[in-house]
């Protein structure tokens, strides 16, 4: 079912910038569960630039994202 509120906020999420995304790493080994999917990131390894924006947001909110 399409939720009405979703369209209101969709444009407010910052998409990961390709240039910046390559420089971002996870602080520790981390697992992100969102939208019924599971994403794992190894500490210190660059995060792929095609990682969904909401996964990046969860990493940021949890303090597990750092720029190198």
């Amino acid at each position, binding site marked *: *079912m399409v*939720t009405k*509120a*979703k369209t209101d*906020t*969709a444009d*407010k*999420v*910052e998409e990961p910038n390709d240039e910046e995304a390559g420089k971002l790493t996870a602080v*520790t*080994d*981390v*697992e*992100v*569960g*969102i*939208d*019924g*999917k*599971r994403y794992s990131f190894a500490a210190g390894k660059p995060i792929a630039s095609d990682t969904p924006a*909401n996964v990046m*947001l*969860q*990493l*940021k*909110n*949890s*303090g*597990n994202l750092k720029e190198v």
Partner: protein
Amino acid sequence: MLNKLISSIGVARQTALGTVATTPTWVSPLVGSGAVAGVEPSVSIDEETGQSYAINAYLEEISSSFDTPVRAYPKTLGEFLYGLFGAVVTTAATTTGFYKHVFSVDATSQTTPWYTLWGNIESEYVRSSDAKVGAIEISWDGNKPLEAAITFACIGVLFGSEAARPTGGTDMAGLNYFTPAGLTFKFAPAGSTLVETKLTKFGLKLTRNVNPEYFSGSALPGDLSMGKFEAAPSFTLKPDDLSAFRTAITGSATGTAVAESVVTGAYEVNLTVGSNTLKISGPKVPFKISWPDSDASGGAVELEVSADNQLGTSSVSPITIELTNDVASYTA
């Protein structure tokens, strides 16, 4: 006679809508009075002329929401928080064998997991499937243990022996749960500089405003829709002075006039039980504090602090809950 004491709830996450789980992951006793299922038909009497009494009725909707109050067991609290938030970030904690789970609200994703719930009163069974966590109210009063009241909404309901809870699942009975013992509470009526503050009771209502959607042809909901996420904290202080009130209303501890714009503050709750920890952070909260009542019988002034909702930004969650326990993953 049937005894309402012999009742518990089994919980398992489904892989998808319509795929009913086969074994429970968790089994939890209820605390106080609550429900393990919700099946309430809404029968309307037809308004027809022709005789002085009604002769027709119709079934319009069957309500399938219910509230299950449980203790805040570290393992199951994480499952219910995942059910509500739909997002979790898990890392290894410093204590070996423990994991830190960070729950926060995603700005645009409204996907939360589906659950199968097995409830019973003695050998009367009901299985609710395609269920979602609609709300969680975490609260305590004084030094009484935390209560987590979970509101579920579901689409499918099954009765009889087929609905009996299959064996399996980790039973919470007898396991330790969170209590206010060792609590640290920090509060900033305005701004973000948190100061350790004593309180007497605390409540936090988290809701996703999950609504059952009914379609012509079936009295049971055909889907569940998601509304806005809301987090409403409330707590009671017994302060030495009214600086918290003054700060929240004027924007400053030395303010003399009511602020004409919104003043936002913050709070942080830290609880522990063994190596399990629970940290709730609200970084931007428009608190409501009223001038306290005077009372002819005397006693300490009680300052009631509450907020209708907590605020986030386009990229920062309005609330973050960090739970450390020995569950390796809630998404596996």
